[in-house]
């Protein structure tokens, strides 16, 4: 994980955008919680530089 994060940093992507979670198949509620937390975190960080570079400004505003 640390290695992949360092690779992302090299291309100017915030390593916070990547996370790994370990949990068992029986942990459905915790899984949902993590998904929500991570989605919230990514929203806070805003669109990624790749998305900004490859998508039109119009689409950006719509979102």
């Amino acid at each position, binding site marked *: 994980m640390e290695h992949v994060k360092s690779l992302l940093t090299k291309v100017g992507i915030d390593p916070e955008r990547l996370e790994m979670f370990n949990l068992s198949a029986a942990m459905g509620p915790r899984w949902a919680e993590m998904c929500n937390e991570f989605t919230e975190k990514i929203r806070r960080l805003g669109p990624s530089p790749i998305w900004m*570079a490859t998508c039109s400004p119009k689409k950006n505003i719509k979102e």
Partner: protein
Amino acid sequence: MITGEQKPFEEIWNMVKDFKKVLVFGCNTCVAICHAGGGKEAEILASLLRMRAAEEGAAIEINHAAVERHCEPEFFQPVMENIRTYDLILSTACGVGVNLLSENIGDIPVFPAINTEFFGAVPRAGEFTELCAGCGNCILHLTGGICPIARCSKSLLNGPCGGTNNGNCEVSPDIKCAWVLIYDRMKKLNKLDLMKEINEAKDWSKAQGPRNFKVKVLEEIKK
């Protein structure tokens, strides 16, 4: 095996940014073992370059491929037709591979994505250490199997120098003094008397390139 490390990403990006169709070409032997230039690393590098190209708005097609070896033409010849459709080959092979592919490919540039370092041993997975410098005139029988050319910071033929420090080299406490290792080994082998003999200056002409040789037996068979 040959060891190498990937060049800094910015240096690689500056090499490729003005091309339109780039192949990141991996070698699945030595440089794959040191996690610098195998097929997997070529794929990751291609992916990072595509991200960077997207950020910069540069229209470059970047793909990846790998063959088992770049140091023997028979391994890359089968894919030659395909790789000739690119306008840059970014090779993650060692310098030998980059040279040989350059010679064989025609008008297409072949650039190095890794810095080739030394040929070394793998004492533990992920660790590489230089034990022989390929001097062309081996003296390991005189030094207890420990090479002073590769392992002494000054490549002294007669040592140790005055800098040896509790078994370490004066250059760094992380480097074992090769001549202390040689002494200890000779002591174990009961050959300390050899330490008193002066090793004469080596014939360094054999250590310098360009070097090449042909296997005599095979030459004779060809005749």
